[in-house]
């Protein structure tokens, strides 16, 4: 299991949880696991999220590997200037 940290705006869609444990070996499995656990997360995830895996920001690579001890944060996709 991988512990995934949600940003605050997602918590109300995940029964108020700050972190969610999912069974995942890749970033793609992290995202699909989250949606399976909390279907309400599908919209914001489809709208675009970044995943920080051990500090490395992954914007789209679903096959990026994730380990059980990886630090995983969901982050809003960046809008820059």
């Amino acid at each position: 299991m991988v512990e995934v940290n949600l940003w605050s705006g997602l918590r109300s869609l995940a029964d108020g949880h700050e972190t969610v444990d999912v069974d995942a070996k890749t970033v793609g499995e992290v995202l699909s696991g989250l949606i399976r656990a909390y279907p309400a997360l599908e919209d914001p995830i489809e709208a675009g999220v970044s995943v920080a895996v051990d500090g490395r920001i992954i914007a789209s690579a679903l096959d990026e590997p994730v380990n059980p001890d990886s630090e995983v944060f969901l982050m809003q996709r960046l809008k820059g200037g």
Partner: protein
Amino acid sequence: MPNDTQKISVKTTDFKVVGTTPDRPDGIDKVTGRAKFGADAYAPGMLHAAIYRSPHAHAKIVKIDMSRAGALKGVKAVVTRADFATGLAGENWNILENIMASDTALYDGHAICAVAATSALIARDAIKLIDVEYEMLPHVTDVDKSMASDAPVIRAGTADKSVPAGLGENVVRYHESGHGDIDAGFAAADLVIEDTFKTEATHQGYIEPHACLATLDTDGKGEVWCCTQGHFNVQKVCAALVGTETSQIRVTASEIGGGFGGKTVVFIEPVALALSRKANRPVKLVMSRSEVFRASGPTASASMDIKIGMMKDGRMTAASAVYRMQGGAFPGAPMEFTSMCGFAPYNLENVHQIGFDVMTNRPKQAAYRAPGSPMAAFAVESVVDELCNELGLDPIEVRLMNASHEGTKASYGPTFQRIGLVQTLEAAKAHPHFTAPLAENTGRGISCGFWFNHGGETSVTMALSEDGTVALSVGTPDIGGSRASMGQMAAEELGIPYEDVRVTIADTATLGYNEISHGSRVTYASGLATIEAARDTLKKLCKRAAAKWGIDEDAVAWVDGCAVPSGANAGDFDPLPIGKITRSMGRTGGPIVGHYEATPEGAGVSFATHIVDAQVDPETGKTAITRYTVVQDAGKAIHPTYVEGQFQGGAAQGIGWALNEEYIYGTDGRLQNTIFLDYRIPVASDLPMIDTVIVEVPNPGHPYGVRGVGETSICPPLAAVANAVSGAVGVRMTQLPMTPPHILSELGKKARAKKGGANG
């Protein structure tokens, strides 16, 4: 591909082209006036359009009568909201509502209808003949007032699920993050300082107003020429808003006369398309300067509470922040980035931040260079400065003691990979500016700043010509010389002269999707894509050489622009230069084209430290910036001169934001300063030379270690200037801009307090 990318080792030395400063490929076009910007296009039979805009801050549109305008000789088409797509949802609905109001004018300058005529003068005359009947509604433009329970509601039901119960209708999004126990942290501190800060909205102030030339045929095929930071985004949005298929709209990006985030957004292109569809002629639409100020996308304004605890030795024990960000009449104020950036420079065990996205009767805010971050830095770095003053500590030593570094858990959650904040602080400390003597009435300010870097969808094509030169097509508009840096990276990889690469910003029909030029991503992402496309090209070149030599392709390497046999058993062949391979490519397998399409992963983050001296006239409150130094981590500077230019430009914009730039709304909710005379960006005589120090701590996510540099440079100046001015006048300045009336008023308060104290 991502796995390949991850394996890429970062090359930081032995560059031949990268790190040099060649002339930009578009240099001659731009110094001779030949470069074609948004408003420079012409099409046969072209009409000129103009937009009618609300003179009211908030009003119900009762009736739009365009009969007099439509009857004017030379007017060929009029459009209202009814001429755009229906059934849109989400952000597309927001964009359409912003560029053409449906039933309510939400801010002064909100577009309500438009005309196209045979000349720009006739179009303007027609606008004066449009009669709109309004029913006035109460308005609000201030963020704090808009959060109050009795504030006029901009659009009920807009808030998303993130917003906790009990907040006003205008609070539409909410962010909260942090870690540790801030109460315990504050309790442990020797000194806790808490203060409230405000910044007004500013504008990107690009010199080129938005402009486009558009054609939309009755069969749904369209052409758009426009100045934009992201023509693929324009394509997507236009298609949705006028109701056609994305691939049927071809968008060409003109040269772009500045954007800084403000041209990541679509304002006029769908209007020109809708007019063109009705008139069946090409339509040119150019905003006036006052339209740019009233109805494009300024920054959010901010109201912020910062609290930081510190030990006597300078160690920070806890930090918390509340950021209330005003983003106009639509959701989107960048409060999550404000929240994430504020404390990012500091290694904090206990940290917490909250952000509110608040709607008002103002134009929909847009990104401006590191959107949301400069305001946070102003507030946070002001409190850090005040703590240093109170505790008698050196501002750089305190920042060094608390600086985030590789392995720090960032204030917003994840762990930092390799970053260069400490190096910028060390370089600032070593810079002669930091220890230079100060003139009378002068203060010196220090600030750090932080911004992310973005990857994003990127496509690049590299086509070889028969003579061995290269046509490189990229899809990110060149907003500051990126054609040069792309050319350099291509030349570096291919081992050919920089001059042999011609870089073109390709249109939407030519390349795969490219995300907007934003998030400091161009040199990073298009650069990475260029390197990958070059490596793809090299693979193909090596294959041709292998076939010619009759050896295995793995036995061919690429060295200095030539294929060479590699390895002990490869055989003995003369190096085969690129031109020799391309000369015969038609007979050896056809054209050679390398390409890359993906979303680069591993964008780095970037930190800067700025030093500024500000002299304040104590009798008038007028501030002169007398010395400025930018120190920033660029990861790797591909073209150092252009990197310096980004540093200097960001600093100059930040100085303007700190001192004189602001949106001024009257009590009627109308914008009062809609021209450059009164929206006061720095002029040449306002600024000193701006010194730069490029720090290079490679980003592990880029083959050469590049970090985006375009945005971070605007993060520290607000705070740095505020700290310098506060030092000069002996009063903590908590509100931007620090105009002379504002500074003089604070000096007056201080003098009266002193006098009162003496008397009492």
